[in-house]
């Protein structure tokens, strides 16, 4: 039944294959869409709700989808699937000329963003969220994209940064600018601590161990109540001020000092520019690091670790520095998060976050900083958009909550993304030093690292 390139393209066989797909879908949907367990509230336990209409709709959808695939996309008799060349968009995004114009244009847009007419509290929060993920993406890009080290526990550094900020500001009264470097330092230290045990691990093993680390940190945060507040987290974190001037309605507040009418938006706009500044800082530092020997060593490590060692490169230090610097930026972002929310709890630092940040880096294209920006906009913004799809309530009934679908569609998007563009939107690489011309290196030549 598997398609081994010899499937015929006659209509009856198309229908037959679509029917088989439908039968499979029936088996998959029966215990999920078709039959639902519900609590009766009594001692008899659960009872079953049969949703035949939903099941039928699901199967019908699969049948139609498969037929459409057979009619329009599937390679015909004997036809080979053509090898996809990178699309014009991908090539454009990867070229340095385009990057030189699009990059600054995006920055200008980002600067004026809070003052645009449609930027209300909700939109501004979304902007802050996206920029935070861009910054996290750039941080993780050092570890995964440049050095080729699969880190599935990056959220741990985000958490260290956030909790460090919270604890330092609550217990010692340090201000934001004091806490920020300390949080980064602590996160970098944890990056080294994580890096040491995993030095000899490669590929999937490295990934799962970093995932385990992330989970360990989350469980510790959850249970070490005396230090971290446990599941209640830490609240009443001092809110950031405009270099000492608080954002409140008092005479000494920001509004009064600058002769403006008080608005709660002022603090939000400040936070927005704060994260924007942090992100721009991250961008410039990471872009610079790439051109330095350390950045080249990271990329060489990804390409071939043994060759690196044969050239006298201390790969232990190279790996640890990648973990540490990547972690540091995660720590900075975490500080910002704690300052913005004024509250931290372990729930914000779970595996889903690590997976999201990793997905942003992979979708953006491992080497492209601009790619990370686009993929963060698509993933974070796109998923938020789903919350707005209230019209689906009319299809599925009033107790259907589209935000439940958020993660579902996120998972589906990850799969589809990999099937469509396994190397990300911008899969090419820009050399960091050149004699005459800066030529883009195409994706097929770039190694993805074995750990």
């Amino acid at each position, binding site marked *: 039944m598997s398609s081994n390139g010899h499937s015929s393209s006659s209509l009856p066989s198309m229908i037959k294959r679509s029917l088989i797909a439908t039968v499979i879908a029936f088996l998959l949907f029966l215990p999920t869409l078709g039959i639902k367990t519900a609590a009766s509230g009594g001692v008899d336990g659960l009872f079953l709700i049969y949703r035949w209409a939903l099941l039928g709709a699901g199967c019908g959808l699969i049948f139609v989808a498969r037929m459409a695939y057979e009619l329009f996309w599937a390679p015909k008799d004997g036809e080979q699937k053509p090898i996809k060349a990178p699309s014009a968009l991908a090539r454009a995004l990867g070229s340095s000329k385009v990057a030189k114009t699009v990059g600054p244009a995006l920055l200008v847009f980002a600067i004026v963003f809070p003052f645009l007419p449609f930027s209300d509290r909700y939109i501004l929060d979304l902007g802050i969220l996206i920029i935070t993920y861009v910054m996290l993406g750039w941080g993780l890009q050092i570890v995964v994209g440049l050095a080729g080290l699969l880190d599935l526990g990056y959220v741990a550094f985000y958490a260290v940064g956030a909790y460090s900020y919270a604890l330092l500001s609550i217990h010692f009264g340090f201000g934001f600018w004091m806490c920020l470097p300390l949080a980064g330092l602590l996160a970098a230290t944890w990056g080294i601590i994580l890096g040491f045990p995993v030095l000899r691990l490669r590929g999937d093993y490295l990934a799962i161990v970093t995932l385990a680390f992330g989970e360990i940190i989350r469980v510790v945060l959850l249970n070490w109540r005396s230090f971290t507040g446990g599941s209640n987290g830490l609240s009443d974190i001092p809110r950031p001020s405009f270099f000492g001037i608080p954002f409140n309605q008092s005479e000494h507040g920001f509004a009064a000092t600058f002769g403006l009418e008080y608005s709660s938006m002022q603090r939000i706009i400040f936070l927005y520019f704060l994260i924007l500044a942090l992100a721009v800082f991250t961008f410039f530092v990471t872009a610079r690091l790439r051109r330095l020997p350390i950045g080249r060593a990271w990329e060489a490590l990804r390409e071939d670790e043994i060759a690196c060692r044969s050239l006298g490169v201390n790969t232990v230090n190279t790996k640890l520095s990648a973990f540490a610097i990547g972690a540091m930026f995660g720590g900075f972002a975490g500080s910002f998060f704690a300052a913005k929310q004024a509250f931290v709890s372990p729930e914000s630092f779970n595996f889903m976050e690590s997976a999201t940040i990793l997905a942003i880096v992979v979708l953006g294209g491992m080497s492209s900083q601009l790619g990370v920006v686009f993929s963060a906009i698509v993933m974070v913004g796109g998923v938020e958009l789903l919350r707005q799809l209230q019209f689906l309530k009319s299809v599925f009934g009033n107790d259907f909550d589209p935000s439940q679908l958020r993660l579902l569609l996120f998972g589906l998007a*990850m799969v589809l993304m*990999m099937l469509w563009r396994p190397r990300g939107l911008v899969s090419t690489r820009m050399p960091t030093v050149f004699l005459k011309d800066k030529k883009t290196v195409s994706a097929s030549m770039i190694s993805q690292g074995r750990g």
Partner: protein
Amino acid sequence: MNYFIQQFINGLTLGSIYGLIAIGYTMVYGIIGMINFAHGDVFMVGAFVSLITVIIFGITGTSSIALGIGALILVAAISMVIAGVYGWTIERLAYRPLRGSFRLAPLITAIGVSIFLQNFVQATQGARVKPLNAIISGGFTILEGNDFVVRITYMQILIVILTVVLMSGFTYLISKTSLGRAQRACEQDMKMAMLLGIDVNTTISTTFVIGAALASVAGLMYLLYYGVIDFYIGFSAGIKAFTAAVLGGVGSLPGAMLGGMVIGLIEVFFAAYFSSEYKDVAAFSMLIVVLIFMPQGLLGRPEIEKV
């Protein structure tokens, strides 16, 4: 001492469940070198399917023993079939197209499938935990002491026996039949296996189906033993079972079982003697310790990298 023995029994029972899930991980990693991230969630789906089937058949604790066991076997069979279809579909749709492509892609896809499955079940079945009244209850006392009474429940006996039976059956299947030979050939050298006429695609698909089926039996056991399931059990059970697979030696079926037992025992003893809140930390730390000090596991072979 009695307390220790009781925990030992409990640990073996939990370990059996982990072992059955671990087999799926170890077989898939052995044959295509990828961690099937979504495998733990197939275990979870198996548990849900079992739950629904049990309710449909109306099996309760008051049924007669023979009828009950017979019905449960039927439940296991149905659950294995549906989980097998899930396993097959996941491999076919999400992994096969990416075989041989960019190395990171199958990992991301697998994570995506895992997230999708968890939330698919949550969305269709509701986010609340699902309880089930005990079906097989009772047991007998084996040791009585002043401080502690050691009991083995019938459920525990059933789990261990069923696990041993399934393990032996599949070990026989793997070592004696042509499927097993095909699997081992693919593990060693896939291109060569293809050139020799082995249907690699079918071998891989069958591996996924078998792994999924065993995981679904583990799901049924989990449901009956703990009496409550939710859509999230796949995540932590998955990591622990993967740890078990690595501990036992990737690619080795007896190793997966052995690793499962060890992890189950570690988790139960840690919870009993130290802290039950941090028991997951103990299991995850085991993973780190094993991969650093003994990456080939207890029953595996060390790999030498050719320069």
